[in-house]
């Protein structure tokens, strides 16, 4: 027993090193498995507050840019509204169903921290579960898809950015409605790969790629980007398609969190199918 203690004392430097490395490694691995380590991320209050303060300061330098973006979004929404009014005028019998609640509800939030230069990028916003934010809600901006919420604290939330190799979303080409899977290529902050589009489809540079609505996170038809390059790899039946993302992640300031009011119902229904 005594010799054991002596051994431990003499080698405590190595043993402590091994213990700390093992602990770090377990953190890394558990995060890779999507298990959430709740304390070690920027949803915690202290880090969130620091990021929020800094973001206030940073806002003053980008006021005019943000204004221009909001104005553009206003214009786009007004056009949509006009079109809807016109449709209703033409057909007085067509009235939106006011009994049914809307399937998707949008909540505005501000980005307080957002990384773009890592392989696994995360985004922190200034709303948490007190404001109704929950895990697995989508994040969109006026420009397009941004990411999905993974961690929530009382007043802050973090999510995977689209620029994260662990994130992929079902996407479709608007022109022909064919769906594939879109994931970041890990290289540039404005390009992603669209996979699983079979060879018999005609693909053109400039085609629009939007969310497919196949996942319960995003509504159908939210802009993702446009096709910039495609080629046919040998030995597969699928295209390699490069998509230029419409969201500028470097200047991201304001986002909207998408809540699917029917997500629970949908998940329950789908899990029933698996059970049988």
């Amino acid at each position, binding site marked *: 027993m005594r010799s054991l203690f002596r051994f431990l004392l003499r080698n405590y430097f190595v043993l402590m090193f091994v213990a*700390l*490395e093992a602990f*770090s490694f377990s953190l890394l691995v558990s995060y890779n498995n999507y298990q959430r*380590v709740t304390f*070690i991320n*920027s949803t915690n209050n202290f*880090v969130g507050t620091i990021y929020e303060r800094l973001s206030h300061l940073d806002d003053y330098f980008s006021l005019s840019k943000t204004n221009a973006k909001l104005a553009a979004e206003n214009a786009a929404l007004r056009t949509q509204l006009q079109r809807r009014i016109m449709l209703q005028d033409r057909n007085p019998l067509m009235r939106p169903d006011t009994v049914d609640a809307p399937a998707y509800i949008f909540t505005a939030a501000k980005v307080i921290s957002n*990384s773009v230069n*890592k392989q696994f990028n995360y985004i922190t916003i200034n709303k948490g579960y007190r404001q109704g934010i929950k895990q697995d809600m989508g994040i969109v901006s006026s420009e397009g898809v941004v990411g999905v919420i993974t961690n929530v604290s009382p007043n802050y939330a973090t999510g995977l950015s689209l620029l994260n190799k662990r994130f992929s979303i079902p996407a479709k080409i608007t022109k022909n409605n064919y769906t594939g899977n879109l994931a970041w290529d890990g290289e540039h*902050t404005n390009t992603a790969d669209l996979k699983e589009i079979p060879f018999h489809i005609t693909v053109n540079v400039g085609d629009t790629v939007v969310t497919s609505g196949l996942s319960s996170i995003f509504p159908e038809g939210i802009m993702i980007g446009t096709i910039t390059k495609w080629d046919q790899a040998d030995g597969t039946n699928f295209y390699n398609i490069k998509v230029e993302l419409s969201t500028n992640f470097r200047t991201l300031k304001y986002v909207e969190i998408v809540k699917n009011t029917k997500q629970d119902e949908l998940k329950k229904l789908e899990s029933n199918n698996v059970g049988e």
Partner: protein
Amino acid sequence: MIKDFWKYVIMFVVLVLIQVLVLNNIQISGFINPYIYILFILLLPFNIQGYFLLGLSFLIGITIDIFGNTPGIHAGASVLLGFIRPGLANLISSRELIEKGTTPNMIQLGFANFIKYVIIAVLIHHLVLFFAETFSLSDILETILRWILSSFFSILIILGSQFIIFKN
């Protein structure tokens, strides 16, 4: 001793803030991410107790992890740096300096030795860091490029800051 304690506390806070608020937001390209917070580990006195050295290395690593949503990656790389630091100190310094417990800075070590010290430390730390971040050997060339470019800028910033501080 107390004066030294506060000096290191301030250095810790300043380095973490510079790292997470300024350098983590540098967006030149995905290949250049300088990490200069390891200067804290490098500047701890030579005669520091082993458990203190490892403990502080872990502490600054995990702090950077919490801010950057990268659990374990910086902590692991920093602890490794803390572990090899005594060996590195023997390599670049005399026994006399180490036993006296001097701070391994530019004046005490001399310019050439300090540069050697920083370069070796940054290269080892960043190598572990970037491979732990990618967590695979695919895209190995990109990871190596990221390692070399980032190390270059980290070394540049660390040496530059030390040069400015000691010139005044």
